[in-house]
């Protein structure tokens, strides 16, 4: 059984990746000339001063998709052990369990579909 220490190449790669990105940034700060105008550090918005910042309660219309996603992502992971131990031509019981599992998942999508989550209507005010 591979203990956690067996995964040390992954950690080495992690550290090397961070170093691999920091190095060019360091070089760039050293050899790049600099200019400062009075509008240089303003946020860019097509050349005019923006009206207010961008950190607002951004109403992401698709948060419902995230809810369905969480339910799905967890369930799909349970299928992995079944996939690994799936015997060919063996007892049919495994196929029934797979079928039931997927049917339940499909129910979630059909329910969301019926609820009209997937249709984006045009918001007409006035």
């Amino acid at each position, binding site marked *: 059984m591979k203990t956690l220490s067996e995964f040390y190449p992954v950690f080495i790669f992690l550290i090397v990746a961070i170093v691999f990105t920091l190095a060019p940034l360091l070089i760039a700060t050293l050899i790049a000339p600099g200019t400062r105008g009075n509008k240089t550090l303003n946020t860019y918005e*097509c050349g005019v001063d923006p009206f207010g910042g961008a950190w607002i*309660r951004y109403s992401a219309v698709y948060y419902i998709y995230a809810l369905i996603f969480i339910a799905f992502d967890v369930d799909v992971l349970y299928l992995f052990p079944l996939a690994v131990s799936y015997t060919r031509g063996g007892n049919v019981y495994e196929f029934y369990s797979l079928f039931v599992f997927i049917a339940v998942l499909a129910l979630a999508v059909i329910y969301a579909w019926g609820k009209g989550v997937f249709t984006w209507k045009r*918001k007409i005010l006035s």
Partner: protein
Amino acid sequence: MLEDIKSEITDINVAEASYPERGYHLAIEARKENLLRVIKFFDDKGFYLEDLCCVDYADYLELVYFFNNHTELFRIKTTIKLTPDKPSAPTISNIYTMAHWYEREIHEFFGVYFENHPNLTYLFLHDGIDSYPLRKNRVPVSEDDKRLLSFPIPHEEEDTFSVNLGPQHPSTHGVLRVILKLDGEYILSADPVLGYLHRMHEKMAENRSYAQFLPNPARMDYLASLNFNLAHVAAVERLCAIAVPERAQYVRTITCELNRIASHIFWLGAFLGDLGGLTPFLYGFDDRENILDILEGITGSRLTYCYFRFGGLYNDVDDNFMDATRAFVKRMWKRLPMYEKLVTKNVIFINRVEDVGILERDKVRRFGCSGPVIRGTGMPFDMRKVEPYAAYGDMDFEIPVGENGDILDRYMVRMREIETSLRIISAALEKLPAGPFNAEKVPKKLKPPKGDAYHVVESPRGQLGVYIVSDESDTPYRMRWRVPSYSNLMTFPHLAQGTLIADAIAILGSLDLIIPEIDR
């Protein structure tokens, strides 16, 4: 039509005008008091507001309203006189909603105050301007007017923000700025800010002679510069009653149609660039360069042509122009199926443009838009058929028309128009008569008689009108350009309201706007 107007409104004097000289059928002298009643009358009769401009005669200001009918041609000029010191007039934006754009423009340039106008802020100019530019004598902007004109900063809300689809943006095709009020991905309101490319064409016209003003129309709309050149030249010919020989009329038709194809191909590339596909832009430019070479042969320039003269052309058409045009027409017929396969059959393109940005047919009269935007809704309204000019009278061609006015229909109308133009060119090439290409005795210093004239030409974007007022000197007293992109842009806030950003960008692209044409 004339009788029921006379019977309907009693206390204004109505004068019949002869269409060939003046360009309009009826001239009505209304007064400030009964203006709204006259406008209401035209609205019930199904007229649309073609243009609204102001002319500054020394001792009074005159507001000129042009009304016209989509179904049958009947242009009416209604004028009211205002006192020059504190000019004010009733607004007609509650009857014709899009009139408020014209009124804002007149307020900026002439200082005419419009009672209970929704929003009189700056549209073209900016607060650095201290006098009303188009007034004949210098009239400084008064203090309370400055406050009225200053630009309101949208206040900050909790969950919506206003984004500048600003002057420098990949898909505004130039320097159009639209302030979008966004709620997440949805657009709550969009209001354009113009004037980033206002180059004072109308002010220049007032201190340049008719011949000196010839290169300017080409800079107004650089993709259809021959059509603009033709509008200017034809308006002056109508004013001075110059007869243009047959051959010049035919050559004008051929070159304007070539220019129309080049403009539509450019639009196709730019529009698909907005939707994300970049390759059609380069394929389109392949054909466009072909046209530019042909036109460069006779006009001498690639983009801003100045080829027409009063009464004819700059130089005659030689025969390798004729062969090159025939070769181009033959090659273009083979290229169109390729566009069909590359673009129209693309399922992502169809999903992006079908049932998006629908302009209802009854709303079109409200906006007075023209060109492919109006033909997309199913109304066959094309100046080449409604008011034939140049040699379009004896050309038979049918006008492509869409059904429900969404972006796909506007796209289809423009592609069919390329085919119609190809047919017109090949027909005109066959019937090109020999003979002189210039009218004989056109005086060098052109001094048109006193009076005004209105001439309309069909530019690739729509109905382009020139209204010239002359006072017998060799410079026009006032020249007003009614440009199609300006009235097409007025439909954008209505169409973009409530859609996603991607749809709004596609709608903006489908209107085919040229910014210097709007800003003049």
